[in-house]
């Protein structure tokens, strides 16, 4: 009998947990309320089946518990009942599938007036590109990627000259209009994931993928990676800023175009060297691997780093001074600290940027 009581308690507990759980969908910030509605329909249908079938089972176990003096019934089949159950199940399945497919139909149908933005993933940071005044992205080839052309745009493509290249700490979008997010990866699989907008999609090297949504709520949202992409996966972050059109345009103006980048102008933010360095550390994805609070990471923490004595993988030891740090940023795999894999990409920075980053690193080291 304990079993019957436990089964009933588990059913009741599950239902109560569902309704009382403070852990549920994040407040939605996009047009995909229909996805939430479909989820609700599925919860209702499945919840009904869960409760009814399990309670029926519990009742059967109670009613037909073993008694020495009675025999079980002998009924190999009951085709009528089996057909009824099959039909009932089919109806339930259709009730869930049909609305799902209708919403999916909208999901795969990108509005023609959707604004374009491109998210580019690499281990373990995000960068973003806007098509610029002409509304058309320039073509891209992974083979073009270099220190002076980190996005890999085709320098001969006129469509690409006005493309705006956003560093990576933030992607800004205006509220209210549909946005088509095209996705590219330079190295491995990633997934552009903001829980509040519901939609997500993998980034696949060698191809361009996409999804769309309409931002409906002003605010800042964490961008996460949802497809395992290696050591720093859990820390591949960025911010999505939804704002009014005017604010968006103002921000967009501060982003360098490809032509400016080729000419070596633009793209430097103001502020003290330390502030500039902090911005660089975020843009370049340094913080995906190096913690600031002493916590474990893919690379050594920056807290207390300067002046430390570290043992290298070849057994020798090294004093972490400015010279060592500068070398390790530009040529990271020359002297790798023991316990870490030689997986840091060489940073592609100008001398000014390197100075700024060093200033920040020293202040973060404390």
């Amino acid at each position, binding site marked *: 009998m304990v079993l019957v009581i436990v089964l009933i308690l588990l059913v009741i507990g599950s239902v109560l947990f569902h309704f009382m759980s403070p852990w549920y969908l994040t407040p939605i910030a996009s047009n995909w309320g229909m996805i939430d509605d479909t989820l609700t329909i599925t919860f209702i249908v499945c919840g009904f089946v869960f409760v009814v079938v399990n309670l029926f089972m519990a009742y059967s176990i109670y009613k*037909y518990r073993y008694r020495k003096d009675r*025999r079980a019934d002998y009924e190999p089949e009951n085709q009528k009942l089996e057909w009824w159950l099959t039909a009932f199940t089919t109806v339930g399945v259709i009730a869930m599938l049909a609305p799902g497919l209708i919403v999916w139909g909208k999901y795969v149908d990108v509005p023609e007036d959707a604004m374009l933005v491109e998210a580019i993933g690499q281990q373990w940071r995000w960068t973003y590109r806007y098509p610029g005044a002409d509304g058309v992205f320039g073509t891209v080839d992974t083979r073009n990627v270099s220190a002076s052309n980190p996005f890999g745009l085709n320098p001969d493509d006129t469509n690409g000259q006005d493309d705006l290249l956003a560093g990576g700490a933030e992607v800004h979008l205006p509220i209210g209009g549909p946005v088509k997010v095209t996705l590219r990866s330079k190295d491995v699989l990633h997934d552009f994931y903001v829980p509040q907008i519901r939609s997500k999609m993998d980034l696949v090297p060698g191809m361009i993928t996409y999804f769309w949504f309409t931002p409906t709520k002003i605010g800042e949202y964490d961008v996460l990676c949802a497809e395992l992409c290696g050591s720093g996966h859990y820390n591949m972050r960025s911010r999505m800023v939804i704002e009014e059109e005017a604010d968006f345009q103002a921000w967009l103006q501060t982003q360098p175009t490809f032509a400016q980048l080729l000419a070596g102008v633009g793209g430097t933010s103001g502020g003290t060297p330390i502030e500039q360095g902090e911005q660089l550390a975020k843009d370049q994805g340094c913080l995906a691997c190096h913690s600031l609070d002493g916590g474990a990471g893919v690379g050594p923490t920056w807290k207390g780093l300067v002046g430390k004595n570290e043992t290298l993988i070849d057994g020798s030891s090294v004093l972490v001074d400015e010279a060592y740090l500068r070398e390790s940023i530009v040529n990271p795999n020359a002297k790798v600290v023991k316990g870490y894999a030689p997986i840091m990409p060489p940073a592609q920075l100008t001398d000014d940027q390197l100075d700024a980053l060093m200033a920040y690193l020293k202040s973060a080291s404390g």
Partner: protein
Amino acid sequence: MALTDVTHDAQDFAPPAEVEEAEVYHPKTWLGKYVFSQDAKIIALQYSITAMAVGLLALVLSVLMRVQLAWPGAVSFITPDAYIQFVTMHGMIMVVYLLTALFLGGFGNYLIPLMLGARDMVFPYVNMISYWIYLVAVLILLASFFVPGGPTGSGWTLYPPQAILPGTPGSDWGITLMCISLGFFVIGFTMGGLNYVVTVLQARTRGMTLMRMPLTIWAIFTATVLALLAFPALLVSAIMMSLDNLLGTSYFMPAIISLGQQLDHSGGSPILFQHLFWFFGHPEVYIVALPAFGVISELISVHARKNIFGYRLMVWAIVVIGGLSFIVWAHHMYVSGMNPYFGFFFATTTLIIAVPTAIKVYNWVLTLWQGNIRLNVPMLFAIGFVFTFINGGLTGIFLGNVIIDVPLSDTYFVVAHFHMVMAVSPILAVFGAVYHWYPKITGRMLNEGMGKFHFWMTFVGLYCIYYPMHYLGILGVPRRYFANAGANGLPDWFPESAQMVNVGITIAAIIVASVQLVFLYNLYYSATRGKPAGGNPWGATTLEWQTADTPPTHGNFGKELPSVYRWAYDYSVPGAEEDFIPQNVPAGKGTGHAS
């Protein structure tokens, strides 16, 4: 009754033997009997013990992961790399090296010949080789813990490009060893699997028609056919990825800049690998689930003292689920970047599977209805299975319905779903089966007190682990994360209270993992000190309980093979003296009613 054609077709007729009984070769040495044994029963035990040993390792890995999730950074050797290596090895071991090996190599070997009235598998020598190749596969897999860089950390799905690029741990040696190990596993399995299929088709005793086979055998048979068709896709994808990795081909590798370096690859497709992997990976779910379905049908019928309800529909459901499992694979890839229009097709086929699956659940529950239910330990586990399987099956409808999968994919909802449906429920079926058949294997009953303790802690504990986990996924917590707090802290939407859920889950996981020691001790203790079981302690009808000796000797059935006169589920037949009539009892004997 119009219903009786299930049971009574040619009831009193078993055709005469077509060939004379011949004495099988019996091994003379200890080595031949117990080590290089060709006896399916010994091979079954070898498979089971190896699988459980490597499964214990995977269990420890899962506890380590849970410790990290509950108390980030508390254990210093769990680095971000170690964490995803644990994730990978835990998943691969549990799915392939434990569950597949245990259900097919373990239960398949033990039960197929015995339940069908055969002396052994049809190719005993190949059967022996099958186990030893499996053992080699396990050893190669374990070796990857000791090579430079450690085992691969690319997730059990082994997706390229990351699996073979330096940003993922184990990309130097680990992934290569993983591919070699899987290759050995597939070869070993193919030897065993062909054996099971041929044995089922060719070595059934007289009167054992296909529609008189116990559902356990139908399920293992179908699962084996699925495995024989699905594993080659895994084998070729492992080979192709190894070629990309070692020889520089570009099957799955487009132009890539890996950590600042241009690679020589170009033109390959990462999504091609995903299609190949899931063409194996989805049938794999049913390779694990179908044998559990079969075992549960057996357990519920025996211990409810009632025939399984709707036997023919149960058989057809197994076959239909098996067939459909080959055209649903891309529901694992809704957000992979494949052509989104595929979503319509795969969502539809996936939800169609819900129908035969639901029929199985209904029929288990309807078997309990009007039964005479003995709540002994195997039955407790069987009911635990049905409960958790209902839960896991229903959440599958969420994820199969493409649009709902979009927000939930790659979150803890997926982790909770697939653990409930292909970890919790199959392992409950495994436990139920062990408690059920242990008396036949050893001649002694498992200790009931320890068994009940094991059941309650495991069943309730597992549910407490995985039910709340769904809600972390709905909230949005991504899976395969070393820590939810990155360098910039927790995501805005991640409340402190959600971390409490993680702590609670981890505590439950530690308790459930510890309780398994009681189970292992029970296996050890009862082998010599358990209550003697006799030949048929549960009053079951199937042939393995009708052997002359318990445990059955080499050749299974003594001098003469049994003939089969009835289906496997003659329980509580009206007018019969006992509440069960074994399959080898001719019509009119043991039953008061002639039909």
